[in-house]
């Protein structure tokens, strides 16, 4: 329990960049750093004078950063997904492959649920595409932090594969404080650790699903919406974020009757655009009020 709490403290710092220095990584940093003998102990913050490491070291640091509370949450969420796989009779190997290759829980749930319901495959592909479209703005917004000083299209495409909810949130939080050349190997380490943990969760969920009593099975399935909601509340900063959150949440049940993932498009693109427009309006009004 104490270990979990300590992990939580490390994984969810409350004051952004200041607490990055208290993460397990940063605490280990002096061990890796080749500091000049007579360099003063208290110099500039690490963000300004980052240590230089080989890419393999940054990859290992990424792996290590992946072992955090978000990894436990992913494990638990994929435990629920594994249970769904088992309940609809979806083959385990293909289910594990979906975690590795699709790496987006909502899309995986739509895929597996659709197949179980006998949805036509082209329609299902469209539904998956519509549900995964949220990844585009996610990748766009985190990409400036992933790409280093030298741009490599190949590695940017590889790194983009790892971007889903967790890597997006953790990337936006951690990457800005890393030196440019560290970002791609760190992202690969972080992403590979999180996918590995999630595949383990999928496997475990599949294997235990049949054994769980109903209240616990429902608890497993609630983990995803519950943890995503709390994480979004935690990450909301400013009127636009709150408006987008509320618009998406409120528009969804109103459009639930629409077929083929259209509900997601209306709630997402419509709600997001509405939030953006109102957020800008509020900002401008505040700016005018000040002047």
């Amino acid at each position, binding site marked *: 329990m104490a270990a979990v709490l300590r992990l939580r403290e490390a994984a969810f710092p409350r004051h952004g960049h200041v607490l990055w220095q208290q993460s397990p990584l940063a605490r280990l940093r002096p061990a890796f750093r080749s500091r000049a003998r007579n360099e003063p102990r208290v110099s500039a913050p690490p963000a300004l004078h980052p240590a230089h490491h080989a890419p393999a070291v940054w990859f290992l640091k990424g792996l290590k950063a992946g072992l955090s509370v978000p990894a436990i949450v992913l494990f638990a969420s994929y435990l629920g997904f594994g249970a769904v796989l088992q309940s609809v009779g979806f083959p385990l190997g293909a289910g594990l492959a979906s975690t590795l290759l699709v790496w987006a829980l909502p899309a995986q749930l739509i895929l597996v649920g659709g197949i179980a319901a006998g949805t036509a495959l082209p329609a299902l592909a469209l539904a998956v595409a519509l549900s995964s479209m949220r990844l585009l703005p996610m990748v766009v917004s985190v990409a400036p932090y992933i790409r280093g000083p030298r741009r490599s299209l190949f590695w940017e495409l590889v790194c983009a594969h790892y971007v889903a909810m967790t890597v997006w949130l953790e990337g936006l939080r951690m990457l800005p404080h890393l030196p440019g050349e560290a970002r791609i190997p760190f992202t690969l380490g972080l992403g590979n650790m999180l996918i590995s943990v999630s595949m383990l969760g999928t496997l475990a969920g599949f294997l235990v699903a049949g054994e769980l009593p109903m209240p616990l099975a429902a608890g497993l399935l609630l983990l995803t919406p519950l943890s995503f*909601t709390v994480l979004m509340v935690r990450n909301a900063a400013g009127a636009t974020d709150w408006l987008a959150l509320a618009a998406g949440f409120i528009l969804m049940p109103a459009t639930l009757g629409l077929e083929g993932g259209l509900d997601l498009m209306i709630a997402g693109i419509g*709600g997001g655009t509405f939030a953006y427009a109102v957020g800008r309006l509020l900002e401008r009004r505040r700016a005018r009020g000040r002047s």
Partner: protein
Amino acid sequence: MTGAAMSEGAALLIVLLVGFLPTEIWRSLAVLAGRRVEEGSPVFHWVKAVATALLAAVVARLLFAPAGALVAVPLALRLGAVAGGVAGFLAFRRSVFAGVLVGEFILIAGIVLSH
């Protein structure tokens, strides 16, 4: 069940064509088309708002139109558990762990008490 008759190979092919391709295309497009989108631009803010709203919509969908064992749980209890989770998160020094724990407790206690 449809899935029971499905072979591992057929399911793998479906995961590739119906799962992987329609998902990865957005990630690749974002890298290819989003390369010129810089941080702080209006487009950047718009896509972030859309991403947030889409995510909120996905979460709402899991709550309003659930699958599996959650179907048997009343909507009020599903929503109450998530609302309680957010309240727990805010009450316990913005701890995500505490929030999830409170939400799960409310759900499971609610199910057990109503039976």
